[in-house]
C-alpha cells in the first residue's frame, strides 16, 4: 500500500526550462510535506517543505505547490540547471500513535540536459 506515489520514474528537461515533479498521497492525515534530493552514492538532502495550511512555498528556484483537495503536490524548478540532475523524493508526514511518521515516495530521476 503506497501512501506516497511518484508515478514518473524519470523526467528529462532542457537546461533553462521548467522541471515539474509530481507527487500524490492517499492519507488525508498527512499535514507536512518535504522534498529531498539525492545524488549517487550520497544520502538524500532536504530541499524544501510545505505545511498543509499553505498551498505554496518558494525558495529561490524551487517552489512547492500543495493541492489538498486533490492530495497532490508538485515541485517546480525554474530555471533548471544541469546540477539539478538527481533523484527527487517526495515525503509526507503525519502525527500518529508513537509519534510522527514520514513516508517517502519511490523517487523521480531528473535529467537536465545542457
Amino acid at each position, binding site marked *: 500500500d503506497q501512501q*506516497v506515489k511518484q508515478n514518473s*520514474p524519470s523526467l528529462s528537461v532542457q537546461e533553462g526550462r521548467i522541471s515539474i515533479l509530481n507527487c500524490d498521497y492517499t492519507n488525508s492525515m498527512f499535514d*507536512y510535506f*518535504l522534498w*529531498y534530493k539525492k545524488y549517487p*552514492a*550520497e*544520502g*538524500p*538532502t*532536504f530541499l524544501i*517543505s510545505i*505545511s498543509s495550511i499553505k498551498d505554496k512555498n518558494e525558495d529561490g528556484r524551487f517552489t512547492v505547490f500543495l493541492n489538498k483537495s486533490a492530495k497532490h503536490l508538485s515541485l517546480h524548478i525554474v530555471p533548471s540547471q544541469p546540477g539539478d540532475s538527481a533523484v527527487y*523524493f517526495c*515525503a509526507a*508526514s503525519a*502525527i500518529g500513535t*508513537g*509519534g*510522527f*511518521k*514520514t513516508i*517517502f*515516495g*519511490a*523517487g523521480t530521476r531528473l535529467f537536465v540536459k545542457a
Partner: protein
Amino acid sequence: EAGVVQSPRYKIIEKKQPVAFWCNPISGHNTLYWYRQNLGQGPELLIRYENEEAVDDSQLPKDRFSAERLKGVDSTLKIQPAELGDSAVYLCASSLDLTGFPYNEQFFGPGTRLTVL
C-alpha cells in the same frame, strides 16, 4: 560541521552471516533514524530513536534485526542472520526535534550498501 557518518560504506556477506552497521549522527541531534532503501524505492523507516529510547520500531523485523543507541549518541543496527532479501542500502538520519514541532528536516548519511550472496 560534520554530517552524519556511517560505516562501512559497502558490505558483501553470504546469507546466514551476521552484519552490523554503525552510525554517528550530527552532534546535538536528539533523534536518530534507520531506514532501508531497496532498489528503485524510497527510504522505509526501520526504527526511530529519541535520545536513547526507541519510540517507533514497528517496521523493524525483530526476529533478525536489532538496534541500539546506548548513550543517545551513536547507534548500531545488526542483522543476524542475513537473508538474500536484506540486500539494500541502509540509511541513517538524524534531526534536532524541538518540542511542539516534530516535523524537522532529517539529515541523512551516505548509507551502507549491503549485498547478501
